[in-house]
């Protein structure tokens, strides 16, 4: 088993966190994981993205060029990483910020109004949890329970007041696929 993930979006959308939570949960479930951000000045203003690899085996390069799972939170992200996504790969798109669809029919692509769902959960700031939920819902990459625990561990110390909205976002994301 090996998942090559790219999460991409605008600077403030928390894509690095999406990646980190996914990698961390997988690590706890005994997988080999790696996480590599795009870094440096090119991040600024433009898009940020992160490569995450989750695998049963040792990971060679942590850099993902052809994702098997793509989370694209805005148009530039879909435009940039949609085409190199692996045939048969999973693409989760935030339709709220992506007017133009990807012209491919050899991938498993879902357009979901992630920003709207986040607002429904209380704040655009939980957009990243919606995406994580959707990744879990769609791919079963990690267990919901692991993620929930991680989220609790993280927020209970840092900002318990945000816990509820985040948990809700995680759940709604996961349940998006029914």
């Amino acid at each position, binding site marked *: 088993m090996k998942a090559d993930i790219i999460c991409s979006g605008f600077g403030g959308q928390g894509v690095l966190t999406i990646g980190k939570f996914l990698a961390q949960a997988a690590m706890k479930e005994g997988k080999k994981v790696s*996480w590599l951000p795009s870094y440096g000045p090119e991040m600024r203003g433009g898009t940020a993205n992160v490569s995450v690899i989750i695998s049963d085996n040792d990971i060679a390069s942590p850099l993902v060029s052809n994702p098997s799972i793509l989370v694209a939170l805005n148009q530039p992200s879909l435009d940039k990483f949609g085409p190199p996504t692996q045939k048969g790969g999973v693409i989760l798109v935030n339709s709220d910020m992506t007017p133009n669809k990807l012209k491919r029919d050899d991938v498993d692509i879902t357009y979901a109004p992630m920003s709207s769902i986040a607002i429904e959960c209380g704040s655009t700031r939980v957009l990243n949890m919606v995406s994580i939920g959707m990744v879990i819902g769609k791919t079963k990459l990690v267990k919901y329970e692991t993620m929930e625990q991680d989220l609790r561990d993280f927020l209970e110390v840092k900002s318990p007041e945000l816990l509820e909205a985040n948990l809700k976002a995680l759940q709604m994301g996961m349940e998006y696929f029914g």
Partner: protein
Amino acid sequence: MAQKVLMKGNEAVAEAAIRAGCRLYFAYPITPQSELIEYMAKMMPKVKGTFIQAESEVAAINMVYGASGCGRRVMTSSSSPGISLKMEGLSYIAGAKLPAVVVNIQRGGPGLGDIQPSQADYFQATKGGGHGDYRLIVLAPNSVQEFADMASEAFDLADKYRNPVMLLADGLLGQMMEPVEFKPAKTEEEIEKLNKQHYDWCMRTNEDGDDRHHHEINSLELDPNVLEKHVLSLHEKYKDIQKNEVRYEKINVKDDNEILCVAYGTASRIVKSAITELQKEGHSVGLVRPITVWPYPSEVIANSITKKTKKVIVFELSLGQMVEDVKLAVNGKLPVDFLGRAGGIVFTPDEVIAKIKESL
């Protein structure tokens, strides 16, 4: 805390250094190394350690010289252009026989270049980018865990040989997160003991009477006969290091290897996964991964060549620097081939496989 945490290489090496007893850290920001300095800025005050953002890399390495002269565990870090600025200081540190740890998170060069991972500072690190006959001990990690582990090893080696040690990593190892498990932090008593081991030469408080000392931290010696003796003594030390401290990993090195690969650091991860693939296809390819790139595991490479081996191939994220050390190790017994990428590009396992298949 034997629990695994997910951490960037830059942060993991900083945390591990603090745990190893490093209480002084001087550096100047540069991408892709800045998380290291930022982590130190955050954590040093918590252990009553010193963090100073120096006015430059030159100042930073000279602060290291001063702190190390006081026998304390001290570290600096930078990335390629900033490391070039430390060359004079490193030569002084080596000349004055001071222990110190320097981290280079290499990026693409020459000049300002870019900020992507590279291994093009190999010559500088292993042959001595500064002036004079000196050597650094150079450790080259290939994972965040190893990077963290090496921090404490680097300090131990530096202390043992009174010699600067470089951790030669790159932007990828600095920026990536991987699970890492830390060794327990040294206690203040343990650290005090480490400091005391240098009391017979380092700068410190004095006393009147028989135990009075006059310690000089110095690399100057105007009499060439005396200076030569000093340099020869350094070389005796280097020979010891070459005898005792060579570290390497053999991956799938077997009698039936058709090809022997050599790669270190980030490059070795890619090559390793490539040879695993090739093995599935029934090809026997071995990999020697130097963990110390100086001292260099020349003998290991020489001894890993068997009758079946047709070729040695070196893989590097540069246009060919370590290839010279490999050729010196192979010493004409086999052809040595090379694949490298430059300017911050990291080759893929497929490129490595293709290169190896050319010779299968």
